[in-house]
């Protein structure tokens, strides 16, 4: 049997309940003078997406790359060294705090309690935090050693195990071949909720790719937020990368299509598509995102879907990741704003539940502050080794 029928009927019942409440309310209001109520502004309806064929859309214009002097992005190797240092020197004292706890002469119940507390305050979630504590406790009890060096080594192992060392963390940017044998660009779609740093990530990623000697094209499919396309264009201009943009309010799918098609025609290696931030609870917007991906795939398969998560995000991050994964099949996570005091522990749960690895981390406002995520190095970084 189909539960939807019951749901529909339940919907009607709810209306009736609400109607009953309304009746009671209106009667109640007639009795005593009721204070003025604040009226909520109407809930935002889904943004209108323009129906119709892509061909009927206004052609997206291609921004001319500026002829001003271009930045030379930092070479990958020196960037890595610098970022690792930054990670170690950042406020990200999570693991160091843990190590300090384990370095005490005597580890008692209170220490373990503090240990678990530290994990919870990193947004790891109650479940994984308790689990990790129990496991560490058992291992140390079994080994029967409590000297700091061993504890430290065990902690390092467990932390690495926690962030999943054997997941594929390469960002897939290699395009395949089309049915006619022409070369297709790799397509990277960047998605996420509002304000996590999608546009910035696209800009930084473009620099990384340019530094690696790849040719890149940007697609500004964030047609909703004011000046988002300009923001992306500015990023592109700095490294001499073309940005394909549409009018504000244009169908993002059409802009994405145009960008990928332009990328294919001009033979670039990678097309990066920036999308508008959307809360995962807005069905209409999520459908729109699904459409963006489907439409891109008419030109070239999407090789990588990156979900941008903000390190400050709490337990809601898991719900976000789950919903985005359902709609666009997320293949990697970018954890941004790790240079702050937040630890982004939520990605552990996301990785575990969805099997989607963290591929990149954003470590600052600097233009080259985007690093690949390497579990061992990451743990060493936060442990301060």
């Amino acid at each position, binding site marked *: 049997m189909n539960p939807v029928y019951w749901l529909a009927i339940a919907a009607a019942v709810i209306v009736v309940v609400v109607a009953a409440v309304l009746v009671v309310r209106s009667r*109640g209001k007639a009795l005593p003078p009721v204070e003025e109520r604040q009226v909520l502004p109407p809930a935002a309806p889904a943004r209108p997406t323009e129906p119709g064929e892509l061909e009927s859309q206004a052609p997206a214009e291609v921004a001319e790359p500026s002829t001003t002097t271009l930045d030379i992005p930092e070479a990958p190797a020196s960037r890595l060294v610098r970022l690792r240092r930054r990670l170690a020197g950042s406020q990200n004292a999570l693991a160091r705090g843990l190590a300090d706890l384990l370095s005490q002469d005597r580890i008692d119940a209170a220490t373990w309690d503090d240990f678990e507390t530290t994990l919870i305050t990193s947004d790891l979630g109650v479940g994984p935090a308790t689990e990790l504590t129990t496991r560490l406790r058992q291992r140390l009890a079994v080994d029967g050693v409590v000297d700091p060096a061993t504890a430290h080594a065990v902690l390092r192992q467990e932390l690495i195990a926690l962030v999943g060392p054997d997941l594929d963390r390469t960002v897939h940017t290699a395009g395949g071949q089309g049915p006619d044998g022409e070369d297709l660009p790799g397509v990277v779609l960047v998605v996420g909720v509002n304000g996590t740093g999608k546009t910035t990530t696209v800009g930084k990623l473009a620099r990384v790719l340019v530094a690696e000697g790849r040719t890149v094209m940007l697609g500004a499919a964030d047609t909703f937020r004011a000046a988002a396309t300009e923001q992306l264009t500015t990023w592109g201009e700095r490294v001499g990368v073309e940005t394909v943009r549409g009018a504000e309010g244009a169908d993002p799918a059409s802009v994405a299509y145009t960008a990928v098609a332009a990328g294919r025609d001009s033979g670039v290696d990678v097309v990066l598509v920036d999308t508008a931030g959307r809360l995962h609870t807005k069905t209409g917007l999520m459908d729109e995102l699904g459409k963006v991906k489907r439409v891109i795939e008419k030109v070239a398969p999407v090789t990588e879907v990156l979900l941008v998560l903000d390190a400050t995000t709490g337990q809601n991050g898991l719900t976000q990741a789950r919903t985005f994964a359902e709609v666009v099949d997320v293949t990697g996570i970018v954890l941004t704003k790790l240079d702050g005091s937040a630890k982004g522990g939520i990605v552990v749960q996301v990785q575990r539940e969805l099997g989607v690895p963290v591929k990149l981390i954003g470590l600052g406002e600097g233009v080259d502050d985007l690093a690949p995520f390497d579990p061992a190095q990451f743990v060493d970084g936060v442990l301060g080794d």
Partner: protein
Amino acid sequence: MFDTLSDRLTATFRTLRGKGRLSDADIDETLREIRIALLEADVSLSVVREFVAAVREQARTEEVSKALNPAQQIVKIVNDELVSILGGETRLLRFAKKPPTVIMLAGLQGSGKTTLAGKLAVWLKSQGHTPMLVAADLQRPNAVTQLQVVAQQAGVAAYAPQPGNGVGDPVEVARQAKEVAAHHLHDVVIVDTAGRLGVDTELMQQAADIKAAVDPDEVLFVVDAMIGQDAVNTAKAFADGVGFDGVVLTKLDGDARGGAALSIARVIGKPIMFASNGEKLADFDVFHPDRMAGRILDMGDVLTLIEQAERHLDREESQKAASKLLGLGGGEFGLQDFLGQMQAVRRMGPLSKVFGMLPGMGQMREQIDAIDEREIDRIEAIIFSMTPAERANVSILNGSRRARIAKGAGVQVSDVNNLVNRFVEARKMMQSMGGMMGAGPGGPKKGRTTPAAKKKGRGVSGNPAKRNQAAQPVQPAVTVPDPTAFGAGGMPTSEAELAEAMKGFQLPPEMQQFLNPKNKGPR
């Protein structure tokens, strides 16, 4: 499965049944659940500890341990405590005696400052002020352009003398802005600053400099409702580095539980003044502590539901449908009424969201999340394919009519049968309830107990979820907040009473079963 605190506590207390009173151990167990619930709502750990200690004090009192329903009692204590912290000190914007009033926005990157500037401007404008937006975010590429566009959308002036993108001095811009505003007779100046991290001392100093330069009447800390355990650190860093007078919570239209609100209110002691809950410039409101408390505890949000309903439903129409459905006269509840009501509900938003606002729906979250709106479209299509006579009276639907309807709606005949059968059953059930409620003065009491009694008669179900429901203590109120609403008893005279009555609201157990896909209903 146990998503809401209510559900968790109910589960905890189930094991205690029959003991008569709560022991300390029982209370500890309860508090552990509260702790986890709060942590999962992103309330920061130190606040959770304090909070739990405060609740412990109250939970030890006689009233709770002797109460018939200690779970509900404790939830009430927790809720009241939350409301008192969140709403401890609510206030509105302070305006300067001598205009312009300067409002400065500060916060992390991506918390929504620029958008909020626009929302605040629209709100102030609607109150008769003439705000001016100041682009002091010269950091992020094209933040200045964004602010200009937002100002244009809001229909207010923007002051953006510097192009941004790393060029220009925000302190100087802010300083000039105040003079410009005075000159152009803008009585409110909203300074949008660049997003900055709490640990970035250089930028924090810059924010402090901007503050010193413009001497704002209000510094608002803009924070994303999705923020996790770091909320307190960040808020502290801003409180120490810049100092703020109020908090604005953004992105409340998502499903984050927003425990950060509690942490900040508790640790920093600054009031949460506004809540922003949508992408459009009008989606902005003063903060409601009681709703936030319900949200943190995931108790559903009946008041918002009612408000939405008031906007979207035709009161008379709904009233008529209600009396029809409950068999209180006005003819029989037909598919046409059903369709009308369903469409009205859908106007309130996606069904999953509407359901989610009902309290006690946590257990069914997965089913709710699985609602496919297209299935509902199909149901509508089936009804649309019926003639008015068929909609009014489903009993005339014979085989050939059903075949025609199925063809018209593009579904199988079995789908039509399914819909009709479920509809008739549900209607029968509702009418039997309506009958009990309308039974006069003696009615209400009967109405409360009968559904549960009926349940027990069915014996223990093989489905654990069902068993849980059956074992739940008898909840007051079946489908209506207060059965007296329909009977001859007294009306709730105030909204407060009504809200009180709604707190105990639960879907009737039958309804809960319907939502359970594992439940093989009668065919």
